[in-house]
């Protein structure tokens, strides 16, 4: 197996050093690295000057669409996008067709991920049978399967029945699982098309009020407290949600929260174009909400950045707004958006980025060999990013099968130069490396 000597790279943006990746682990760092590399055959040197080394990124939230919508994405194409985006592990959401609500489906997705080999694919299991919110799916069977599922979610739909939510939270304690909630009161959002506020009132689009998210989060943190379970809140999008989670954490409730890159970067003003590429659920919110989720991410109220990578075929986006599907691509642009909104603004360090995009996501998903520190003996899951690069996003140049990026034509900072999965380079010089 090829070993990699990365020279002069800045771990977490700190002082430059050398890192040797060999035998699937970080074999040496500092002055030892070059010396140990000499003792080995088949060593490739990677010039790391000017680059930042991060632990391989871990996504808590991606839609890989397989099985069922292979016209939009497959595990293979989504994994490629993930590797190019600096990821070494992704959680694949359960809203496939068939739904990932049995051991059979989660094992299928897990094996497709292994066969693709670009990143570790950790299937998320559905909370309820068919995502219908009526009966618990066989959570224990999924947890005990080869896929070792620990995160369960009906994402795309909310577990709105409070009794079912309580049962789910309690049940997964048996195997240290977590319920990842898509917080959306279905009745308050019937027919909803965009954030309810000034812009929706002008555009004549049915509103998705912030309270529909916040009321579910408020209920769920209280349920989690009552039964002593772990709750993870997906795609927090409103200022009010951040406040509720901050309060819950101050009470010691075991809640974690996620924000998406697009909720850090885009507002409902983009909807004025009526271009469904900006249609997403939860919807793009106001500038005040964007500021609140940035603040929440910076101060630790929000634990992780999850992409909510949601590929959709052209025919589901090249249409009128009401007919458009919800969701946008995210895996290949997430790190750049976090750099632009959080690092380049001075709100977070690269060590913070490693925490919110690698360490915490692995911890929430109970993925033991990911999200580890950059230290000798740790698994060689490493991402190299050039923070001084800039790139223009082109919808036809992304690895995903679908093209629904909201950033087309925008210039974003930062570029992933290399990604290593257990010492194997999945990306080198910014390109896939087989």
């Amino acid at each position, binding site marked *: 197996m090829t070993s990699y000597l990365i020279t002069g790279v800045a771990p977490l943006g700190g002082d430059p050093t050398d890192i040797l990746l060999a035998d699937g682990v970080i074999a040496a760092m500092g002055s030892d690295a070059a010396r140990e590399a000499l003792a080995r055959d088949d060593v490739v040197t990677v010039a790391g000057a000017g680059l930042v080394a991060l632990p391989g990124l871990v996504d808590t939230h991606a839609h890989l669409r397989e099985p069922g919508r292979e016209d939009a994405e497959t595990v293979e194409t989504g994994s490629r996008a993930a590797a190019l985006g600096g990821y070494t592990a992704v959680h694949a959401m359960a809203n496939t067709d068939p739904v990932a609500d049995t051991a059979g489906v989660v094992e299928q997705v897990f094996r497709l991920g292994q066969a693709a080999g670009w990143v570790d694919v950790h299937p998320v299991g559905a909370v309820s049978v068919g995502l219908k919110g009526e009966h618990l799916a066989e959570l224990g069977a999924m947890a005990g399967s080869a896929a070792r599922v620990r995160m369960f979610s009906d994402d795309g739909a909310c577990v709105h029945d409070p009794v079912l939510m309580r049962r789910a939270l309690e049940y997964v304690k048996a195997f240290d699982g977590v319920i990842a909630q898509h917080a959306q009161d279905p*009745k308050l959002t*019937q027919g909803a*098309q965009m954030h*309810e*506020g*000034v*812009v*929706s*009132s*002008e*555009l*004549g*689009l*049915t*509103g998705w*009020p912030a309270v529909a998210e916040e009321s579910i989060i408020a209920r769920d943190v209280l349920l989690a407290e009552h039964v002593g379970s772990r709750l993870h809140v997906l795609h927090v999008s409103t200022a009010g949600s951040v406040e509720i989670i901050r309060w819950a954490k101050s009470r010691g409730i075991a809640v974690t929260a996620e924000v998406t890159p697009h909720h850090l970067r885009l507002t409902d003003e983009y909807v004025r*174009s*009526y*271009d469904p590429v900006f249609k997403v659920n939860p919807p793009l919110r106001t500038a005040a909400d964007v500021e609140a989720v940035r603040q929440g991410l910076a101060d630790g109220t929000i634990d992780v950045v999850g992409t909510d990578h949601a590929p959709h075929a052209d*025919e*589901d986006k*090249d*249409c*009128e*707004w*009401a*007919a*458009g599907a919800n969701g946008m691509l995210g895996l290949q642009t997430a790190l750049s958006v976090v750099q632009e909104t959080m690092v380049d603004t001075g709100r977070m360090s690269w060590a913070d980025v490693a925490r919110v995009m690698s360490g915490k996501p692995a911890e929430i998903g109970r993925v033991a060999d990911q999200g580890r520190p950059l230290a000798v003996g740790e698994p060689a899951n490493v991402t190299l990013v050039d923070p001084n690069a800039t790139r223009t996003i082109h919808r036809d140049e992304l690895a995903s099968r679908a093209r629904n990026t909201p950033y087309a034509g925008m210039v974003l900072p930062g570029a992933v130069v290399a990604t290593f999965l257990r010492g194997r380079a999945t990306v080198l010089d910014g390109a896939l490396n087989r």
Partner: protein
Amino acid sequence: MKHLLSAADLSLAEALTILDTAESMAQTQSRQMKKLPTLRGRSVVNLFFEDSTRTRISFEAAAKRLSADVINFSAKGSSVSKGESLKDTAQTLNAMGIDAVVIRHHASGAPHRLAETDWIDVPIINAGDGTHQHPTQALLDAFTMRRYLCGARDGAPAADGTTLEGLTVAIVGDILHSRVVRSNVDLLHTLGAEVVIVGPPTLIPVGAQTWKARISYDLDEVIRVDRPDAVMTLRVQRERMSGAGGGYFPSPQEYTRAYGLDAERLAALQDHAIVMHPGPMNRGLEISAAAADSPRSTVLQQVANGVFVRMAVLYLLLASDEGLEA
């Protein structure tokens, strides 16, 4: 301007150009021979994804009186869930070489998509999109107000350049779901009128505080204090009385008591004030028969004026070198 998508896009000069041109069109329509050769050889498609006999016929009459060929395309019942339908239809029409599209669609923003995508490249005229805009309705309403509330106030043609400066217009009813009100607020503001929107709080959108209109929940107070020159009542759809949460208001009776334009409220209006309605009316709900049939009512004049305004829009977008630029 190549398209007419939203009343908010119209500058004062552009709005006056359309209204003045509509007066010129109106003059030609008092002749026995109403047909003008202006758009001979041009074809206009009425692309209606939603039922609206009145608006379609009005556009059809306008186009035909300008000698255009009119193709009516009714896609009633076509599902929103398959978005290809709008794109495919637009591309099909483009391939057939038509010259303009008049579109009515249940999805807010559908005309914008036609105008901004590469699906089709002809002038797009919004004939009502979802709960967003219905700019020709606002134009015909303004045209009517110029005739009945400005100058001699007798319905005679308005002088070129007449604005609505100094007038107060109350728009009453289902503000939340109304494209008529959104277009009217934009255009009336541009033309210098004050607008008060009135309705139960459940039917006023969150966010409307930023509109160029005042908000009131009390029609009687508006009539007494604001002394409106025009009261425009909006149709209240029966389906607003059911659905999520059991409906937007408790009962039709309660709605009528608070917001219906009944004989008593009619009598409280200023002498010169007019009563408007975009039609079709629910007599006995938002408007009483007394108001609908009173001499103050301009409901039928609005219908007649709609043809003049639509002739003007078609002319300016298709035949005039200046387009809508004033």
